[in-house]
Structure formats: C-alpha cells, structure tokens
C-alpha cells in the first residue's frame, strides 16, 4: 500500500516534469520566442535586446534547466503586461475558477447521478429516456453557444441572472450550469452503465439467492460497487472543469484563470501564459493524484492487495 502511494507520487512528479517540458517547448515551436512575445512593430534591435534579456540565446538545455528550476518554486518571471510576478496574478484568479468548477460539478452530480441510477434500475423507462436524452444533448450542444442562448433568455430577456461578472451569488448559476452540462451527461451515462453492469454480475445473483430484500441488494451490493468507478470519474471531471473553463469564463466575463489566459493571449504575455498553463496543469495533476488515492482507499482490492 505504501508502495502504491510512492509510485503514484513518483509518477505525478514525472508528469509535472513533463508539463514543464511541454510548456517550455510550446513557446519555442516557431523557433523564435522573442518575436512571438513582442508586438509586430518591434524593431530588430528591440527584438535582439529582448532576446538577450530573456536569455533566449543560451543553449536550450540551459534554458530548460533554468525554467524548470524556477518553475518548481513558482517563479515564472514577470508578466510582460503587468510587469509584476506572473504566478501571484494567477493565484489571485484561482478562487473564482474553483468556485465556478465546484458549482458546476455540484450541479452535474446532483442531477446526473440520480438520473443515471434510475435509468440503470429501470432501463427503457421514462426517466431513463430523459436521462439518456440529457446525456446526448450534453454531448452534442456546444456549451459556449448554449451560454450565449442562455444569456439571451435568462439574463437579457428575463433578467433572472446577471449576464456577466461575478458580483452576486447567483452570477455563478448560468456559467456553472453551462460548464457542468457535459459532465452531467457523462455522469448519467456512466452511472447508468455501471448500474447495469453490476446488476448483471454473478454476486448479484447470489444476493438474490440469499433472499435478501430488494433494498438491501440495491444499496449494499449494487450501489457500493457503482460508487467506486464514480468517485474516479467525478474527480477527473472536476479537473477537466478546472482546466477547461477558458471559453465559459470568456463568455461570462468570469474573473478566473481561464479569462486571464484569454487576456494574456491577447497581450502576447507569454510568461503569464506559461504561469497559467503550468499552474493549471499542476492543479489538475494534483486532483488526479487525489482521486487515485481516494479510489484506492475505497476499493478493498487495492487497499489490501499487493
């Protein structure tokens, strides 16, 4: 068990290292990160001076080592736009994104899982059809478009919710719903198929052969087994929402990390972009690790296995 944790942590560290590498490489795809970062009006002399200042002329390996060793302690240099350290700017935005993702996850779980459960216990029934339609729509409707439509109706025409910003508590409703909709659909499907699969297992037949009450069978035998893969999915989806909020935050002018990224791209502020990319990946990786740990604690086969 200890070994399992150590292995997982080791893997996560390796992955983080991989993230550093990817982010480092991305900025250098075009070959000249300096001209990437400066505006088009910059003269060749200014570009060269910039290159010197940022150390882009050094050997790649040296640059990478420098980048990685600084990134590990959270030093991403100064934002080109704000001229203050990049990471604190990102951290400032973190609570907003977390709030958004958490609200979205909550909606997805509260709606998606029950629908999936009922669908799995009564396949072909009315609730099942409802759930599966929701899942299909969640997968087929581009959520940024849905955002526009919802803003048009609920914010502008009906005035129930603000159309942008994070000023009131109910500001989070529309963006969270839109962000959480694909996950909602996914949870319906997964829960449903997990329930159906578990119900077909031999040990459920055994439970019936013991003459147990249906409620006992559902809760003790089916649901507990269904919960295991669900925990894993919920954790991963939370990570997905944290990392994938850029478009939603842009549409709703939600002051989170995603919106910051969008702005940074407009400003060509690559130190800031790097900071957002690395930090977000770090958070997502951390979440995945936590999910793995939680999973291993719930499933006795992993907890007590070798």
């Amino acid at each position, binding site marked *: 068990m200890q070994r399992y944790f150590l292995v997982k942590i080791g893997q996560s560290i390796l992955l983080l290292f991989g993230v550093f590498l990817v982010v480092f490489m991305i900025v250098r795809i075009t070959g000249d990160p300096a001209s990437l970062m400066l505006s088009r009006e910059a003269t060749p002399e200014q570009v060269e001076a910039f290159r010197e200042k940022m150390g882009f002329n050094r050997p790649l390996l040296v640059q990478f080592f420098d980048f990685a060793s600084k990134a590990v302690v959270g030093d991403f240099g100064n934002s080109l736009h704000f001229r203050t350290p990049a990471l604190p700017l990102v951290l400032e935005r973190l609570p907003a994104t977390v709030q958004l993702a958490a609200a979205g996850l909550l909606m997805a779980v509260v709606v998606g899982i029950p629908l999936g459960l009922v669908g799995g216990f009564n396949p072909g029934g009315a609730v099942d059809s409802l759930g599966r339609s929701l899942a299909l729509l969640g997968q087929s409707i581009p959520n940024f478009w849905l955002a526009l439509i919802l803003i048009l109706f609920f914010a502008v025409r009906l005035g129930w919710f603000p159309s942008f910003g994070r000023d009131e508590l109910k500001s989070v409703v529309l963006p969270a719903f839109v962000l959480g909709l694909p996950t909602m659909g996914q949870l319906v499907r997964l829960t449903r198929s997990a329930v159906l699969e578990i119900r077909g297992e031999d040990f459920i037949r055994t439970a*019936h*052969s*013991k003459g147990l009450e249906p409620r006992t069978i559902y809760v*003790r035998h089916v649901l*507990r*087994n269904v919960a295991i893969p669900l925990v894993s999915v919920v954790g991963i989806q939370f990570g997905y929402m944290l990392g994938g909020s850029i478009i939603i935050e842009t549409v709703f002018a939600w002051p989170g990390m995603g919106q910051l990224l969008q702005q940074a791209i407009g400003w060509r502020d690559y130190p800031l972009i790097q900071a957002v990319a690395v930090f977000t990946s770090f958070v997502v990786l951390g979440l995945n690790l936590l999910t793995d740990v939680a999973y291993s604690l719930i499933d006795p086969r992993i907890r007590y296995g070798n």
Partner: protein
Amino acid sequence: MSNVLEVRDLVTRFYTLDGVVHAVNGVSFDLAEGETLGIVGESGSGKSVTMMSLLGLIPMPPGKVEGGQASFTTSDGRRDLLQMSADELRDVRGGRIGFVFQDPISTLNPILTIGEQIAEVLIRHQDMSRQEAQERTLKLLGSVGIPDPELRYKAYPFQFSGGMRQRVVIAIAIACTPEIVIADEPTTALDVTVQAQITDLFRRLREELGVAVIWITHDLGVVAGLVDRVLVMYGGRVAEIAPVDDLYENPQHPYTVGLLGALPSLESKESKRLVSIRGVPPDLLIPLEHCPFAWRCDYAFDRCWEEIPPLLSVGERHQSACFYDLEKGGPRDV
C-alpha cells in the same frame, strides 16, 4: 422417507429478440428428505434453468414459467413454489433452500468482507442481531473447514484461494440449516484436488445436517461417488432417472450410454477409444414434436420421429424416456 420436493411437468420459456427459447419442456422428479440427487446434462440441456426457475431466479422479462407444480415440504407444511408470491419466495431462498454456484470469485461481492456476506443471510432470515450473526458465522466458518475464523471474518474474497472461497459460499448456503441445497456446478471451476475436498465437505455436511442436495453438473464422473440418484437431462427434458449404481451399470437411454462411453475409466483393461456422441445439441428455439435426441441417436426409428417419448419405467425406480429397448435390441412394447 417423505419427499421434500416434488416437481411435476415444469415448463419454462424465454421470450427473446431471436425467438422463443424452450428451455424446460415438461420436467418431473422427486427429491426425498436428505437425498442427494445429481442432475446431469450438457450446456443447454436445461439443468440449471430448471432449478432456477423454481425459485424465481431466472430473469423474468424474457423468462417465464409456463406450467407445472413444485411442492416443497418444510416443517411448516407443503407449498407450491410456483404459486408463491415474490415475498414468499424471498423467504424460501437462502432460508429454506440454499445455493452454491459455480465460480466462487464472481459469486462473492468483491467489496464486502466474507464475514459480512455470511452474516447477511442470518440477519435476514433468522432475525439475529449483528453480534449473534457474527458468532454463528464464526462457527459456520469452522464447520466448513476454514482455519482462523476470527481473522478470516474480516477478509475479502480476493484474499482467499478458490477452494476457500467455495467453502465460504457453502457456509452461506447452509447457514440457516435449509431443507435443500442446490449446487450448480460447484466444483467445475476448481482444481481437481480441491474438487475432492469440496465433495468431501458436501458428504460430511450431508451426514451432519441431513440436508437434501441437488448437484447439477455436466460431468458424470463427479457424481459417481457422491449422489444417491441421477437425473439425466437433454433438450430441456428428462432423459433418464435412476439410482446411481443402476445408471452406471445399466443405462437405458442412448444418450446416457453415450455419456458413459465418453468417460475415461481407470478400470478398463484394454485401451479403448473414447466415444463422443456425434452431432450437436438441439436448437431450443424450435419446439419439437419428436424425441430431441433423435438426430444423434444410433437407434432411432420411425416412432422416435413421430412422438415425444414419455418417461417409461425400465426397472426399479429407474425410468427412461426412450422408445428403444437396448437390451432387447428393438422397440419397446408400449
């Protein structure tokens, strides 16, 4: 000795997308108190479906029991299983009739301790408190031969070997001292040495508890030293039924003969080729008006194709559903 179970003309069908599957077509037999009956047949013969449909364990949307009676006698009297409500059947399952299934790893819930899985039955049927159920479970673990019961109580199925897991399943089956234990291929998924241990365990439990056992298997060799009588099934019908020694020495149904011929034997002095029965099992989607074995039978004649042979008496407590008399070498006089 009285009969604990009397089944008459059981008919079970499955209404599937591909058609109607005639799984059980008029099966009748008796089970005496404390008797061990072996039900032998190949896959698709209906041997499992017969017992499962008596207790409501077949999936009921496609499956349907369409006829027959099954009178079950306990200390509370005689009831027809097929007329019972779902609630009543639930009381019987686990409480008065126990089950042992084939593959112990998939039969047990992987995320519950084995102690909990045994105690569950006791709490459900005997109204025990958790404490009482736990004590009784520890005793049960001992009686099925699991060492260190206190430790094992909290263990999970994957931490046991196959033979141990099957012992746990047996403990669950006998927990409430039922009248009957239905064992569906209990040793098929186990190593040969472990098989012997489990069959020994059954013999011992049978003596100690006086429980009647129905042992379902495709392997005629396994039942030889274990059962009192054998019921051979084919195509959803009973082909032959006889006391075990009688069946082995004097089989009357060509299918049984074929099955026995396919058994390797330690006793034959010369090396003999194992004879397999030619052909394949019948398609259960097609309801037959003739003997289901006719295609594969070396002795089939006109009558076999015109009527379904009923179970005919061919000896003491020995019946065979066949129009051909093997000893005589010609059709029976019926």
